[in-house]
């Protein structure tokens, strides 16, 4: 059976597994976004708290995925739950760190102006600071999404959902009829899915860019300087400093 024939014959299963894969990744990234942004808001003004938070998130990232998933079986059992928790933990660092960077890079004159005209702390955050930090936060979300796409495949090891099953099955009966196709379809599927979601997030970034009317058809007059993905991947600068 060729690769294409294999795709054809397992269409429904593959589609379902792809959707599962996307769902669990997006769920964990969403969860990590909520937790990461909250921790960042809570810590970004205090250098020590900021350092502790990023260090802990960084430490979580160093735990090998197999080990973490295995360890989570004891409290959470097999299947969906341990996969979701593990992925959320991995997705946390880039989002947390970019949110901290994004918020601390805001011109202090703007926060002072916000206070000076009588904005409450919450209003200043929701109408000024988070919208301005959003491009950097979104970059963190994109990095997290890419990273967890791959790790999610390992989730199949603890019975989690997704394309990992194709890869594990293929590797389990190496030399078997469809083993290569299985491993290949799993891997390629993850890559294609990752690229698609990243493209969607990039589009989301364009649409939600603060201060721009979502008008993609007309070329923009002036480009927004700085702030955009320059702070891309979590730079180790913030964690270690101070």
């Amino acid at each position, binding site marked *: 059976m060729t690769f294409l024939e294999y795709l054809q014959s397992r269409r429904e299963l593959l589609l379902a597994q792809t959707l599962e894969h996307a769902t669990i990744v997006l769920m964990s990234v969403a969860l990590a976004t909520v937790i990461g942004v909250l921790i960042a808001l809570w810590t970004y003004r205090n250098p020590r708290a900021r350092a502790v938070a990023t260090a802990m998130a960084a430490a979580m990232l160093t735990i090998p995925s197999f080990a973490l998933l295995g360890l989570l079986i004891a409290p959470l059992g097999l299947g969906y739950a341990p996969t979701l928790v593990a992925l959320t933990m991995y997705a946390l660092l880039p989002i947390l760190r970019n949110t901290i960077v994004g918020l601390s890079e805001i*011109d202090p*004159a*703007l926060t*002072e*102006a*916000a*206070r*000076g*005209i*009588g*904005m*409450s702390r919450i*209003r200043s955050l929701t*109408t*000024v600071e988070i*919208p*301005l930090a959003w491009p950097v936060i979104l970059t963190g979300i994109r990095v997290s999404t890419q990273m967890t796409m791959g790790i999610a495949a390992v989730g199949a090891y603890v019975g989690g959902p997704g394309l990992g099953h194709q890869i594990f099955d293929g590797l389990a009966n190496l030399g078997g009829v469809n083993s290569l196709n299985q491993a290949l379809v799993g891997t390629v599927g993850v890559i294609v899915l990752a690229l698609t979601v990243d493209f969607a997030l990039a589009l989301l970034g364009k649409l939600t860019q*603060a*201060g721009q009317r979502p008008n993609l058809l007309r070329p923009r*007059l*002036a480009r*927004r*300087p700085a702030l955009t993905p320059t702070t891309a991947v979590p730079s180790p600068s913030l964690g270690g400093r101070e």
Partner: protein
Amino acid sequence: MSRDVMIDLQQVSKFYRGQKAPVVDNMSMTIQQGEIIVFVGPSGCGKTTTMKMINRLIEPSSGRILIDGTDVTALDGNDLRRQIGYVIQQVGLFPHMSVATNVGLVPKMLGWDRKRIEARADELLHLVGLEPAIYRNRLPRQLSGGQQQRVGVARALAADPPVMLMDEPFGATDPMTRDRLQNEFLRLQEQLRKTIVFVTHDFDEAIKMGTRIAVLGERSKIRQFDTPENLLANPADSTVAQFIGRGARLKQLDLRRVDAIAWEDVPLIQPDKAANGAKRQLEQTEGSSALTVDADNRPLRWVNAHDLAAGAGALDGAGQTVTTVEPQATLRDALDAMLASRDGAAVVVDEDGRYAGTVTLDGLMQVIHHASEQEEPGAGVPDQRAGATTAAELAPEQR
């Protein structure tokens, strides 16, 4: 003329934990409605801290601050700040919001409806000289620095607050833009009559903007609190004098207008009429000059007896060119005009360019000396006296 007290600082102090000396030490000041009070002093003297305690961006450690009779600590800090205009040097426009949205922020927080906010934003943009149809939907970065600060002023004025705090509002702009913004703002203030606390470290700006100036020393100690005129004429001590810097007398010239000096009359000659009579007149008053004027009394040239002799009686083209000033011009402009003229006199003309009188260096000197002697005779600082003699040396030789 009874005016209401708008802001009353009563023995206000600010301590920071871990610092022995207070940043602001027991400061008291009464500010009347409609005044522009300028806090001026070296950096780190606590002038900004003092200002920020008025809208409680910084909480006072002790003392009371009353605005229009109400203790500011009685209000919620954010509510208080919505009622006080606030302009900072860095402008602080939110880069992701349009100009109109920025201007409408305070009204929005006060719960105005959308229509009213839009109308108000347009009104204010118009007021600060930005055509609403063009600028309303622009983003701040599409504006020049000067335009941005105009929007900053419009935002501060949005809810028509009685009090405005301005922290070096024009400090970040180039000198030409700054001058224009200052003039525009003064013109605006003539209509609005806000009570304004204005912080700057630029003494010239203080003189230009202030109704009264508070020269602050360390810990916000008030060294002198007076009108610009009195401050220049009678600095309280050598530190204030030092801060005023050289050329205090020259700076005074910016504060007064030509109509403050006594005008003198000179003989007028209409060349086509009675030339001989005028000639005789000139010859009699040896050494002095006369002014030739046209049929509408517009000044043409200075002439004296010598010119007449040289020109063999013909008045056309004889004599020296005339420099003119209008009654609203500052004395500095008048001085410039006087120095440009051979006779040390400038001709005052009305709006139509007709002769109204002349001003001379002597008249100028009298006004300046009168100002300082009236207040406190002999209170000058040596440095300042030196300045006065320099001015005197400029004077007579032409006469």
